[in-house]
């Protein structure tokens, strides 16, 4: 997995707001193709690079220049881990909606929305805080780097 350099922490917060909106639209409309697109986005950020996140580019070109510069930086590893957790829920959600298991789709999308909203509103990374618990049940997380 290639490493990303640390980022301005306000970028991921903006991105989390956009993700929250996308997931809310999916819940309201059941439009699973949108959720599938979000799943691909999560996968690209988690497994390839955070630089592939289009919201990050929107932030850099349209929002960051209007804000006071900050020297604060956030490590990329927690962010990518969070994207990975989002990917798992979005994938389950997409499969649920696409195969007619709408309740499964809604529940999985709902979980992803909860995590995205907590990240956006409070800067809380649920997946990161839960890493120790997740790892206990998902051995594949062992030695990720």
């Amino acid at each position, binding site marked *: 997995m290639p490493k990303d350099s640390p980022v301005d922490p306000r970028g991921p917060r903006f991105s989390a707001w956009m993700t929250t909106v996308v997931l809310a639209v999916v819940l*309201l409309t059941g439009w699973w193709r949108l959720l599938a697109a979000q799943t691909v986005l999560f996968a690209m950020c988690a497994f390839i690079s955070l630089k592939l996140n289009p919201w990050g580019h929107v932030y850099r070109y349209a929002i960051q220049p209007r804000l006071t510069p900050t020297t604060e930086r956030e*490590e990329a590893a927690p962010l990518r*881990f969070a994207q990975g957790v989002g990917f798992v829920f979005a994938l389950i959600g997409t499969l649920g909606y696409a195969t007619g298991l709408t309740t499964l789709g809604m529940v999985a999308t709902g979980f992803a929305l909860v995590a995205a*909203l907590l990240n956006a509103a409070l800067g809380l990374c649920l997946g*990161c805080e839960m890493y*120790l618990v997740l790892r206990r049940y998902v051995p594949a997380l062992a030695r990720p780097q």
Partner: protein
Amino acid sequence: MTGVWALLGALAVAGAIGVLLKVREGRISSRSTPSADLPAPVRDLLAPGVTLVQLSTTFCAPCRHAKVVLSDLADRTDGLTHAELDVTNLPEVTTSLGVMRTPTTLALTADGREVLRVGGVPKRDSLLAALRPHLP
């Protein structure tokens, strides 16, 4: 219509988790654990006086904030040392200590007795007040 309820449910759950985590953030719980239970990687970090052993992982964003608070507190307080332990690949350590989230900070005496622990980013003043009786 179900989608609207699902959305409202998700918003309510997020609100509840947010409130719960904010309330618990930095909360100090007093302990009195016998020293025999301490895992070796933690025991190796013990210094004279009280050692704040901060358990962190690679994926933990608030761990950096906790580190700033704790190392600054240790620098200004006699008999207090701060040490960070990366437990990303040490699940047996967190399991034996009963730690579920990072950062979690344990305050340990030189002989390995745990006097208190803090979940989340510690609040400097209340932590110092709780540590006072244990400092030389």
